[in-house]
Structure formats: C-alpha cells, structure tokens
C-alpha cells in the first residue's frame, strides 16, 4: 500500500542504524507518510481514540495495582483505601472505572461505523475479524476487572457469568469448578481473575498491532466505500489525520473528563459499594451497561443451554458478517434500503440494552424476545437478501470526484 520507503537517513549515524534496524523508516512509512483516503469523516477517528483509551487503561491499571490487594477479605477495603488514603487514588480509580465505559462507547461507535460503511467487506474481512476478537477480549478483560473490587455486583456478576459455562452438556460442572478453583466464586477465583485482568490488556495491545498491520496492508475504507485509485485520492496520515484524530481525541477526553469529575458513578451500580456476600443475592442483578444487550438475549430464551448459545452466537455472528452481507457496494450511503435497516438495527441494539437493564417480568419478556429475534433476523435474513434485491445508487467515479462534487 505504502510503496517503497521515502525515508533517507540524513546523518551518518542514522544511515548506520538504518542498515541495522530500519525502525525509523518503518515508523515514517506507517505513522507519518501512510497514504490515507482524503475523505475520512469524524466516524473514522474512533480507532485513534480507542488506542488512547487502551493506553489510559493500562497506565491507570498499573498504578492501581500498586495499592490493590487481591484477597477476598481485603480487596473491598483496599479499593476504599485507594479512594480515601492514596494520593489522587480517587482520580486514578475513577479514570480506570469510567475509562472502561468510555472504551466501550468508542468501540461500539467504531463497530457501527464499520457496519454502516461496509468496512468488513473484501478485502478487509481479516481486519474486521481481528477487530471482533479484540472486542471479545475487551469484554473478558472488563468482566474480570469488574470482579476485583469484590462488591456485591462483582461477586454475583462473576457467579452468574461463570455459571454460563455450567450449561455445557456433561462437562459443565467440571468446567465451572475448574474456572472457580473451588465450589463457588471465592478467593482462588479472585486471584486468577486479577492475574488475567493484568495480562489481557497486553494481549490486546499485541492484537491491536495485528489489527493495524492488517489495516496497513489493505488500506482504509472511506465514506464512499470505493477503492483508492491513485495518489489524488489520498493524503499522508501526518499532518492531516494526526491533526483530525488529535482533535477528536481531545473532544472525547473532555466528555470522559465530565464523567470522571462530575458523574463518576453514573455508569456504575450503587450495589457494588456493598461488600460481597456469598449468601445473599442482590434483588436486581444486572451487568455493566456494555453487556446489557447480550444479557437481554440470554434472558430472552427460556431454556438454559439455548439461552447461553444464543448469547454467544449474537457476538460470534459478527465473525461471519463479511459473508452474510451479499451486497458488493460497501458504503451504506449508496444503499437506500440498507440505510433504513441499519438504523433499525441500531435502535434494536439500544432497545435490547434497555430490556437487559429491566427485571424479566411482564412485557419486558415479550419485547426482549421480539428484539432478540430481530437481532438475528437482521444478520441471517435481511443482510443476505438485501444484497440481492436492492438496487444501489450510482457510485462516484473516484474519491477525488466525490470530494470535488461536494465542494461545489
């Protein structure tokens, strides 16, 4: 994509080093000169925002571990100790806690952007699938992190989610005992979750590197969805997109800051400030907001095993998305019918999130079932058929033509 390197070492030392490790050329080619479609809009800035959030979470996490104690009798109090005694502990913990939520805000926008503009279509299938794997690891990491404060919601969330594995026929009980290291969620569980919660962000960082590698092989998609045809369609990443991404990152951090300073517990659950009690389940147990749509799908199915299968399928189906969408036009901008169904799908996902936050009673049960059904219907029926039936609008001749047409 980027062609032969334009890097010319300017000094004798630079030349000497370049011949031994061409890392400066690599950085220049991929972080500065990388040819990027010139029409990317602000929806494309969330990749950079996500990279920043991963770094924020790793940095705040590393310092929190300097004060946290992963032991069932001490964990809850050590978090309160961070909040009350540790210098700026309140800030660091609130940054980490709200950082997780903001990370998911950004990843959901990033994913919906990919869905609207067809960023998963050939030749970007592997790029998309690596993204789905990143999302799965993010969910596992956030789940284990939520267990560490050892509040009531930590404990019961951990118990309910690990119990999902007990639905596996024949070996389910062995699997849950193995996951717990005992007969229930207890100290061994807390310790291993802590270990993995520290490990997985670094695994994420490595897979993010693969994600960017795959991106730099095939190049960015863009709002028109058509291929880059030549140098007139692109701009170097720096300064054009370092500046655009940088601006978006600052705006995003302001929103993040508003939560950290003015509503640090807005996205959390007050019950988690009650220490874990293995003998009493809280009245309304629900996961963090970013899992709620999947929790709603789990509860929509009255059978235990089928409910668990439906929940995991609802995420794993994203891996098949490049082949479920049969349309050869990438961007939703040129697909008039798809555009409508896309927004219906967004509303259905938000609706599932709302249902997931409510107790499984009355009309919530029925609505949960209707929305869960539609979620799968969108992927399995609507997307494959739409590609065959829909007549897309005419595509612009090139990215450059499209940009110039809009200038008039």
């Amino acid at each position, binding site marked *: 994509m980027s062609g032969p390197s334009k890097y010319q070492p300017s000094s004798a030392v630079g030349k000497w080093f370049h011949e031994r490790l061409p890392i400066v050329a690599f950085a220049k080619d991929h972080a500065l000169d990388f040819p990027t479609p010139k029409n990317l809009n602000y929806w494309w800035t969330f990749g950079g925002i996500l990279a920043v959030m991963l770094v924020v979470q790793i940095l705040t996490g590393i310092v929190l571990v300097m004060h946290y104690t992963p032991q069932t009798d001490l964990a809850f109090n050590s978090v309160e100790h961070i909040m009350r005694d540790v210098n700026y502990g309140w800030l660091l913990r609130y940054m980490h806690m709200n950082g997780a939520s903001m990370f998911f805000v950004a990843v959901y926008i990033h994913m919906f952007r990919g869905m609207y503009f067809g960023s998963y279509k050939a030749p970007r299938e592997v790029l998309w699938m690596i993204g789905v794997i990143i999302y799965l690891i993010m969910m596992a990491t956030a789940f284990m992190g939520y267990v560490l404060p050892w509040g009531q919601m930590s404990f019961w969330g951990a118990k*309910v989610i690990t119990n999902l594995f*007990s639905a596996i026929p024949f070996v389910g009980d062995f699997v849950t*005992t193995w996951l717990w*290291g005992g*007969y229930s969620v*207890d100290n061994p569980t807390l310790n*291993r979750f802590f270990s993995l919660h520290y490990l997985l962000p670094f695994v994420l960082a490595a897979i993010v590197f693969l994600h960017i590698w795959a991106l730099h092989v095939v190049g960015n998609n863009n709002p028109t969805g058509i291929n880059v045809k030549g140098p007139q369609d692109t701009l170097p990443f720096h300064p054009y997109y370092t500046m655009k991404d940088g601006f978006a990152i600052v705006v995003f951090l302001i929103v993040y800051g508003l939560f950290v300073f003015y509503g640090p517990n807005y996205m959390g659950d007050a019950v988690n400030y009650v220490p874990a009690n*293995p*003998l009493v389940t809280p009245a309304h147990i629900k996961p963090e907001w970013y899992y709620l749509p999947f929790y709603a799908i789990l509860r929509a199915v009255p059978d235990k095993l089928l409910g668990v299968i439906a929940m995991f399928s609802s995420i794993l189906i994203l891996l098949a998305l490049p082949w479920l969408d049969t349309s050869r036009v990438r961007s939703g901008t040129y697909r008039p019918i798809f555009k409508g169904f896309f927004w219906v799908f967004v509303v259905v996902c938000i609706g599932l999130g709302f249902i997931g936050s409510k107790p499984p009673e009355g009309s919530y049960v029925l609505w949960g079932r209707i929305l869960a059904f539609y979620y799968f219907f969108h992927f399995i029926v609507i997307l494959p058929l739409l590609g065959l039936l829909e007549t897309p609008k005419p595509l612009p001749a090139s990215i450059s033509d499209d940009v110039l047409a809009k200038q008039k």
Partner: protein
Amino acid sequence: MSTAVHADVNRRDFLMIATGAVAGVGAALVAWPFISQMNPDASVLALASIEVDLAPIAEGQAVTVKWRGNPLIIRHRSKADIDTAKAVKVSDLIDSASRNANVKGNADATDDNRVVGGKEQYLVMLGVCTHLGCVPQGDQGDFGVVTGNSTTGGWLCPCHGSQYDTAGRVRKGPAPENLPVPPYVYLTDTKIRVG
C-alpha cells in the same frame, strides 16, 4: 534444501517425525500442570465438610449456613409443606430426577427421595439456583403453601425468576434442575454432617 530431490523416505524424514512426536507429547505433558493448578487445591478440599445442629431450627424456619463457599439451606418443614410436596405427581415436574447425592441411581424426585426417611421435616439442599447460581429467596413464589396473603415454603430466584416448591424441586424455568441435595448423614438425632 528442496525435498523433491529426496522424494523417498530418508533419515531426515524419520528425524523430523520423531522429533515432532516427542515435542508434541512433551508439550501435552507440560500443559497438564498448568491446567490442573486451576482445579480446587488441597486447602479448598479440606474445608469440604461441616457439622450442623438442627435442634434450634423451629418448625417453619429455614437457616442458611455456608458450605464449600455456597449457601446451604436447611428448612424445618411443616406438615403442610410436606403434604403439598407429596401431592405433586413426578410427571408434572420439570426435572424428574431426585438430584439427591444420598439416593442411589436415577431415583424419581418424589418428596421421599429429597429427604432422609423418618426425618422428612428437615429439607437440606444447596441454595444455588441451577440456572446461573443466584441464591433463591425463601417463602416466595407460587409453589409454596399459600394461606391468605402469605406463602410459606417455596423459593423464588431473584435473578431470572425460577421457582422451586416445598421440596426444592424446580417448578418454573429457566432453571433446568432441582436444587441439589448434598451428601449428608445424621450423626445424632438432631445433628448432621454435610460433605
């Protein structure tokens, strides 16, 4: 370098396969301790048995004690509780297996098979919903003994709405199984050892 030159089986192929096989078996053997370390350790297993005195539990009262990190429900059932449970046909149950570690084989989930003969007033079972592990709340739901506005016996899980009757058998989903009865024995007339 090309294998085409050495198309027939030679010493290098043999070494390749033999080395690969040894490395594969070795990797599997080394993986075992890494997987096994996550299973319950000796200190967890050592806590696996407790003794409970049943005498202080009044009729109609249920107590919860901690066993293996889980709540163990012991309920002193009234005659109405027992009669209600006995009146249920096994064919009406969601789970027709007794789920009692003290009863051999695939016994039916009759009330007799959920308790110890002659001690049927004491129902001993794990308070762990068989759906996703929440603690069912006692004296609730539609399958207890209803007198006026109050329900006695019967359990309702607050998480996903599963209900259990006065013998701890699941009567309304999504839970798939009856609440499990752990292995226990009577040490004296009013004292049991669980585990």
